[in-house]
């Protein structure tokens, strides 16, 4: 992992690393990746993708309206709220 790769990962994660943070984060990151790297040598040929998900079940419920947050409750926690809507910056740049 080099500096550019780390910045690329940070972009994917919507995080902005300050120049002062990048070097120490890069050192930590490479140490952690080296620590977990052994796992790549594990023989997992006996395990198939199905084995991971076979015990999982879909959870379904009746298709009826349940209790949900009311507009005023959403307004109370939203950073900016006007006329029944959460206000966000313009999405389509002009």
């Amino acid at each position: 992992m080099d500096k550019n790769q780390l910045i690329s990962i940070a972009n994917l994660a919507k995080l902005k690393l300050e120049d002062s943070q990048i070097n120490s984060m890069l050192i930590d990151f490479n140490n952690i990746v080296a620590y977990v790297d052994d796992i790549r040598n594990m023989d997992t040929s006996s395990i198939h993708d199905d084995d991971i998900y076979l015990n999982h079940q879909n959870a379904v419920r009746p298709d009826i309206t349940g209790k949900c947050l009311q507009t005023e409750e959403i307004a109370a926690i939203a950073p900016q709220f006007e006329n029944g809507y959460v206000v966000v910056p313009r999405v389509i740049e002009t």
Partner: protein
Amino acid sequence: MKYSATKQALNNGTLTSYQVCSRLIERIEKLEPKIHAFLSINKTKIIEAARASDARRSAGKALSAFDGIPIGIKDNICIQGEVASCASKILANFVSPYNASVIEKLLAAGFILFPNLNMDEFAMGSSTENSAFAVTKNPFDTSRIPGGSSGGSAAAVAAGMLPVALGSDTGGSIRQPASLCGVWGLKPTYGRVSRYGLIAYASSLDQIGPIANDTQGVADVFSVISGKDDHDSTSKNLPAFQTTEISELSIANLKIGIMKDDGSQWSADVKNRFDEAVEILKAAGAQIIELDFSLFNYSVPIYYIIATAECSSNLSRFDGIRYGLRVNKTGKLEDLYTDSRSEGFGKEVQRRILLGTFSLSSGYYDAYYGKAQKTRVLLKNQYDSFFKQVDFILQPTSPTTAFKVGEKTGDPIQMYKADILTTSVNLAGLPAISIPAGLGTDKLPIGLQVTSPAFSEGRLLSFVNWLATVPQFKVDLPEEIQ
């Protein structure tokens, strides 16, 4: 005051909930400057709830035998009208509009909530040093950490500020702080307690559980919070745990597994106490069986790949749009996302989001995340084979007693290794409890971890009740805290 004594006093009328809660608030006010277990405390609200409980009892309308018992709540569990900050700047002012399912159940039983217990930010840490607001200290030595991430819960219970508290455990976050603070902490089987309203870190691993100053506190609270919940799709369709499932076990009929481990990563105190525990069980007639846990050294790497992958996905919801911190410097949407997240999340949370994003990214997914998922199945299979041979597995909970504040903050891998004995249990979805096992030569608590098959908490707590009677395992608070 022990949980069982508190419950008894409330039920036989020798103490009111008001008296119990007032005394605890006094103690909290006295000790908080040293311990910092709470992020905030609303005395008025607590006293109002206690008086309401007393009024119910006086009218013969107690909601349950638990009516009026105080319980602490970790700051990642949502309570309607209360801040649930996860000890993060990004949620510092977030007031939950709804109750977690465990909170609904506790309130229905009459428990008095003491919210806002400190924690590592978003439950990511092993020392509570990652809280954005305060470092909680260990009541046995305030120069040391209480463990984490439920460090506030464990420290408050250990210091006698509360008889019981809720924590959450993703890789050891109930058991490790319980161990380092000399109290009991149960991580239930995955699916046994609803996660609805627990702010998610790693959804396939997270589980809410009790930390208490006696075994009855663990069993009672677990009985209240467990059971099927339609709001959590991973909730198991089983009835709530009943304390009547706890019975007297014949130790002589038990097979106890111990992991083949050279103990080289354990401190001498921990190793000696573990060996002593094994001898005590042998003397009581239990059969000790050594298990070859060949995947042991992979458990922390698997955990950190899977947990961080899930964290990078779960924490994507904190984007400054609908709730939480919004930083809008440029008026551009992309900048709003990145500025809100970069200013709102602390260093360790950012590190884990980055690691998770990396292991899920194109070109690395199969090598890391895919491999970790498959190895997790192998690990679970290994546990299944162990429980064909033994009833319980006994280990230390933590390889050392509590370390010094700041000792491991500069080295994330050393911090991650603090979870070396606990993470595999979460990966396999099993129940495990940390129990106090006396003090080391450093006068700090040592904990033992007992793991049992999935959904066998009744037998687990039965065994623990016996272990709680071992005189060598008694833990007394240091005089300055008493």
